[in-house]
């Protein structure tokens, strides 16, 4: 059943992405000031939202683990954290390509870019901490605490374009009290967000299954060792 849901979600994501690519490449006109490169927003912004959703899920799963002490919440937390890292990397790379064209530089140390990179690095640190701890419950506990500590950084990243004057564009979308885009130009962002969320869900489910199986293998190995 779970496999079928995953296949369905992956198929849905693929279909939507094809539709989005068709729409943004053939139907949406070039932007007045930026030209063709502005189309990167249709992947940059939804990826950022997906990464933020994954980070929020990691926070919730970590809190739930600490409350319920059920290791499957820990498995969810790893899976969504890896999702956050993946989509975060997409955000950083697409942003850098856009910046190279529009600003003429790959990177600048403004509040948005810095906080995003720092959050990304902290989640990478989360995975490194997991590798350093051998005992499963101690690993789950410590990494859950770390994940909770990382989350305020994600919130800072989200709010940074409102709190500081950044080189990164301020809020654009109308849902965030931005100026909004011309009619018809904004909707593919939300449609692509749906596609990327489906994709993230598929990846998270895949990693979750792997994580459960690895834990099973681990415990089997321990039992085998104990019997010898």
């Amino acid at each position, binding site marked *: 059943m779970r496999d079928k849901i995953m296949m369905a979600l992956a198929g849905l994501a693929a279909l939507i992405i094809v539709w989005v690519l068709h729409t943004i490449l053939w139907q949406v006109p070039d932007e007045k000031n930026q030209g063709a490169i502005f189309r990167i927003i249709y992947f940059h912004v939804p990826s950022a939202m997906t990464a933020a959703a994954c980070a929020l899920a990691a926070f919730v799963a970590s809190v739930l683990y600490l409350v319920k002490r059920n290791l499957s919440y820990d498995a969810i937390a790893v899976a969504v954290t890896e999702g956050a890292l993946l989509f975060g990397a997409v955000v950083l790379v697409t942003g850098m390509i856009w910046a190279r064209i529009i600003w003429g530089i790959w990177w600048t140390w403004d509040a948005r870019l810095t*906080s995003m990179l720092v959050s990304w690095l*902290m989640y990478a640190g989360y995975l490194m901490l997991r590798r350093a*701890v051998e005992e499963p419950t*101690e690993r789950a*506990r410590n990494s859950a605490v770390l994940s909770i*500590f*990382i989350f*305020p950084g994600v919130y800072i990243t989200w709010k940074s374009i409102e*709190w500081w004057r950044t080189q990164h564009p301020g809020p654009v979308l109308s849902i965030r009290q931005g100026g909004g885009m011309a009619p018809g130009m904004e909707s593919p962002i939300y449609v692509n967000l749906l596609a990327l969320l489906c994709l993230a869900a598929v990846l998270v489910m895949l990693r979750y299954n792997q994580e459960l199986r690895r834990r099973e293998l681990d415990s089997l190995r321990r039992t085998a060792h104990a019997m010898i």
Partner: protein
Amino acid sequence: MKFLRQVVAVFLKDLRAEIRNKEAINASLAFAVVILLLFSFAFDPTAEQTREISGGLLWLVFAFAGALILNRSFARELTNDCLDALVASPVPGAALFLGKALANYLLLLAVEAICLPVFGIFYNMRWTAQVGLLTAILLLGTWGITVIGTMFSALTVNLRLRELMLPMLCYPIMIPCLLPAIQLSTVVIAGQPLGPEMQQGFRLLVGFDVIFTALALVLVDTVLVG
């Protein structure tokens, strides 16, 4: 009231242990002075440049030197299973954490108090223009470093790669605290007035301290006891 007494007991115990063998504070102080020297060789700054980088220079030194003190904070308790004894004692985790954090705070402030005149001498800087404000920034920024550092010291105490993991996990999380501290210190040391943007820096510092102190107090029991 009982909680406060417990905090003070842990605080005094840590401070006494440190004053008797001076392990962490000596290492930290020597390290801080060495970095100050190295920076001076590495950049050979003019007076104008020094004024521009003073905040960053000082806070990097404090953060690096702080890691040495914070690393020892819980690692010191590993010998003879002292940590288990502490956890088993009737002191709650939050009191244990607060006592240790306060001891680290005082030690780190002592290191900073020695570093500042050294910095003033080696770099020919008059840093005393706005001592009151500078002290406020130091107190707030150092508490941020200490809270995060002490918490992560507890988190990484059982790891093989403890010395490596602590700075790797700490420094990125400290950035929202270090950044305003650096900017504010640069302005204050140069003797310039604080603009409205700088006041936002103070808000960020206070917010960081409050949020992470609260988080640490809530979560430290889980880390120590399980």
